[in-house]
């Protein structure tokens, strides 16, 4: 009786497994034959009812059946798995993934960050100051005499006789010098305002980064060294540069730093007005009057200051023709950086 069943099951399994085409179907077979309540286990249960003397023989037959079914099962499973890995699945992996938006800082912020990190590496602190300033901090303390034409260099927005929108970040220099004792090594990024007609080349506000170094024995030679180092870090190591004499009321001697135009390589183009040079910053030795105004003895200490415009720098670096686009905040523009 049980022997017949064993033979029958063996035949049925061979029949079943020959028609299996997928791992799913194979799994159904595993459940049918090999699971806890499967056919093979049921047969083993029936072993209990077999007379004692027949048990070893029937037990061997059952074991053989189980081994045979398991081996066959594993062979077919291996075949199917191998086949499965080379068969195309029924899903379209070429469909797009769910993309996420990563934000970004404004390109002007990114430019300031880059400048800040270079100076941070040279041991500079960072300070900020108010944009609505008094005439004293913006002009007087910086050695702009009242009624001097030097004031015309910076068209000023006033909110009252003595208060104005700062025209440069230099008032932060005064605030820092008054608050901290030398040695001072600091940069001062910030927003400044000029009462200029808005056009592609000029806007009523822009951003600057200024720097200030005060210590004993600070020289013009060192000012040059620091700024050349900065320019090489920022614009590239192979640049050529020059320092031109200039005038700012708060520095003496004063200079402007030019680098070779990196649009035309110094041959002369529209961007550099055919001079081959691009002005990148103004600088100079802090005027003794400014030191005195800030309570620093100019015979003991000397120092230098410098300042650069961020918009201009970014326009040159990223080939932006119209300054107004920075402040329109067109999403299509913001997403480019």
């Amino acid at each position, binding site marked *: 009786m049980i022997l017949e069943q064993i033979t029958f099951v063996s035949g049925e399994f061979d029949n079943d497994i020959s028609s299996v085409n997928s791992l799913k179907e194979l799994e159904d077979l595993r459940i049918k034959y090999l699971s806890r309540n499967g056919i093979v286990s049921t047969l083993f249960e029936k072993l209990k009812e077999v007379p004692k003397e027949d048990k070893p023989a029937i037990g061997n037959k059952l074991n053989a059946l189980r081994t045979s079914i398991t081996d066959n099962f594993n062979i077919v499973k291996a075949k199917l798995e191998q086949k499965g890995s080379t068969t195309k699945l029924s899903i379209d992996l070429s*469909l*797009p993934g*769910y993309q996420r*938006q*990563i*934000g970004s*800082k404004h390109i*002007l*912020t990114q430019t300031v960050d880059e400048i800040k990190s270079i100076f941070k590496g040279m*041991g500079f*602190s*960072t300070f900020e100051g*108010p*944009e*609505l300033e*008094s005439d004293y901090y913006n002009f007087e303390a910086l050695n702009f005499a009242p*009624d*001097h*034409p030097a004031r*015309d*260099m910076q068209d000023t*927005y*006033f*909110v*009252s006789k*003595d208060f104005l929108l700062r025209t440069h970040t230099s008032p932060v220099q005064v605030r820092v010098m008054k608050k901290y004792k030398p*040695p001072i*090594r*600091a940069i001062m*990024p910030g*927003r400044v305002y000029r*009462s200029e*007609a*808005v056009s592609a080349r000029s*806007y*009523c*506000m822009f951003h600057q980064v200024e720097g200030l170094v005060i210590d004993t024995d600070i*020289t*013009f*030679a*060192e000012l*040059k*060294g620091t700024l*050349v180092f900065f320019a090489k870090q920022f614009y590239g190591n192979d640049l050529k540069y020059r*320092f*031109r*004499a*200039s*005038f700012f009321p708060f520095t*003496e*001697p004063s200079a402007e730093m030019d680098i070779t135009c990196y649009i035309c390589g110094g041959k002369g183009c529209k961007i550099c*007005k055919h001079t081959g040079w691009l002005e990148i910053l103004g600088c100079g030795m802090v*005027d003794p009057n400014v030191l005195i105004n800030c309570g620093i003895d100019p015979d003991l200490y*000397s120092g230098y200051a410098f300042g650069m415009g961020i918009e201009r720098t970014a326009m040159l670096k990223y080939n932006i023709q119209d300054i107004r686009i920075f402040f329109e*905040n*067109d*999403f*299509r523009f*913001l*997403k480019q950086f």
Partner: protein
Amino acid sequence: MKISLNWLKQYVNIENIPLDDLLNKLTLSGLEVEDVYDESSKLKNIVVGFVKEKKKHPNADKLSVCIVSTGNEEFQVVCGAPNVEAGQKVIFAKIGAVIPNGNYTISKAKLRGVESFGMLCSESELELSDDHSGLKILDPSLQEGTPVSDALGLNDVLLEIGITPNRPDALSHYGVARDISAIYDLELKFPEIRISESDQVISKLAEIEIEDTVNCPRYSSRVVTGVKIKESPVWLKESLRKIGLRPISNVVDVTNFVMHELGQPLHAFDLDMLAGRKIIVKSTSVESTFKTLDSKDRKLAPGTLMICDSQKPVAIAGVMGGENSEVSQNTTNILIESAYFNPSGIRKTSKYLSLGTDASYRFERGTDPRGTLLAANRAAQLIAQLGDGQIAKGVIDIYPAIIKDKLITLRISRIEKILGYNVPKESIHQILQRLGIKIQNQSSSELQLSVPPFRPDLEREIDIIEEIARIYGYDNIPTVEKIYSTLAKKYDESAFLDNLKNTAVSLGFYEMINNPLQSAPSASLTGNEIALLNPQSQDMAFLRTSLISGALEVVSRNIKHGEKNLMLFEIGNVFNKNNSDSISSFNDFNEKTKFILIITGNEREKEWNFPQTPFDFYSLKGLVNSFNSKFLLDNVLNDSYYFTQNRIFDYSFDKKIGNDVIGIGGKISQQVLKQFDINQDVYCFEYDVSLLQTALPSGKRHYTDLLKFPKVLRDFAFIFDKSVTYSQVIEHINNSSSGLLKSVKIFDLFESDSLGPDKKSMAFALEFYDIDKTLTEEEIDKEFNKLIVSVSDNFNAKLRGN
């Protein structure tokens, strides 16, 4: 300022200096050459032509057909000028020439059937003058074929030089020549002045008096009689034309020429128009009007320095002459004014009148008080020469207090101390002397210098050091790289802002930078706005009072471009008036740094396998809370909710610490959206950055041990009355649980008819654990069942499900 190199050559010999080198050194020394214009290049292919033949045009009465020779070639040219005649030497523009006036190129043409190979030109066509009456007839001695630029002395090079406001001494050809003489160590030649005086004594012809000697420290004068007013000779007209001035008449042209030669502004009065033949220099005491020579009535402030005759004002001192004493065609006797005025007085007047002239530009920067007489002599010489006049005997020179040289001590050691380089002694001496600075005394350590008053910018030792440095050349000072290691404390006042920006970016926000200058409606929306006294336009006449209006403008613009899904942030300063109306101290206003997050449109666009998710109030809250979590403020800040509409929001919430509102936000009201022409929902939240910063937990951050025991999660759902809020339930659960409940989160909320009209279901996920041990089922069941009872009882809520 325009400088002609040919003109410059009269004062310094630059023949042997290559042009590029000259331009470069001028620029490096501080006289920045902004533009160079080579005149000869503009007249290429324009030569002296000889009209060999002139015939009538067969088809046109007003045209003639000429044969023009350039020596070795002959050209047929059709000409329309009435004054063309055979035998003339004329200006001939060959094919390919570019005509300056109109900037067009000459090409072969056919005029009424006759071919023409070039053009004969008038003065106006070459922009030599405004004369377009006919052909320019040249001197017959000129060689045909010679380039016109050579023939007419048009081979000059013109420089546009930017002069910084500290350098009035360089606002003339002689002044620029002085710098060149210092740079190249060349001799500087003052123009030769030869005066031959008549017998008439000046004091009999005119009288001068200064009442206001503070504003007019010196007034020098010459008188020239019997002058014929006429056109200036070519050399003078050309000199002025090149530097951008329009020739007027010999007398006016001479005053302009001398100003651009020596830097001293001059004025020529018609002596016969001066009542009493007298000049009185005085300041006005009351407001008055005066007609300047451009025929405009000028309103003068009290205290304006005026040049008057014995009856009336005749000129605004240092700014512009009056119509009533102007030199005219009938003038014969000239009084030349060459004065020194106080710079700040002239600047005030010029500013007040919004009237800047070449004269006021120089006076307000500071002219040379020593140079007045030389300039008067130079002008008298030229006026007499060009107008056939006689120079009266003597001068009138009122100079009550002589302006002395400034004495400056230069410590040699300071040069190296400031520059970091020891400029050779010979160079120092040479530079100072070439610049007109006299060395009075010297020792091994010091130079005693005497600086003449034409350099008002040189007052201190440091100014002298700059002169030495700029002439010696900044490029000749070495570049020293120093590496600093200092233990001084480092500050970074922008670190927190950087942190905020980085966090916003990590959440997917883009940074915007808006103009803080706004229109009145935008600025007044959110605060007590401060007005600019001198705005460029009404669109930019007020300071922003919050970041909201600027952000809404950006949202509005972007939606119009089709960018409808936006996550933007900005960090910037905003300005509000305190109670006072005018701003006279820092207490009258406040300037705060704000940080705004603004969202609109879809958080997620529809995708092939995903529905679109619009931003809503809870998106905003979630983003804001993400910030608070990042800055460890979850348990520090308290939320309040406002269901009623205010000026900005339909509904809103704020975050407080104690009573300080550190941020507020919500759904922008329909009314405000309408103001900004936006037709989709917008949510924003604005933080006060300094309050946010002060709310930050102080002290060091510490590591927390990671949990070693399992967390157990349980859910429950209740049917509540609709009036019960989420925050009430959460607060109750938190308050009534023991320490084992570590977190509770709402995961489902719904209302339906089956629940009843005033009911809603809220389901919560609870998380239990103990940091010291594994919790048993019994402990959790006890805690969980206690919460079920407590919530049911407290809210009269029915437990669902089980």
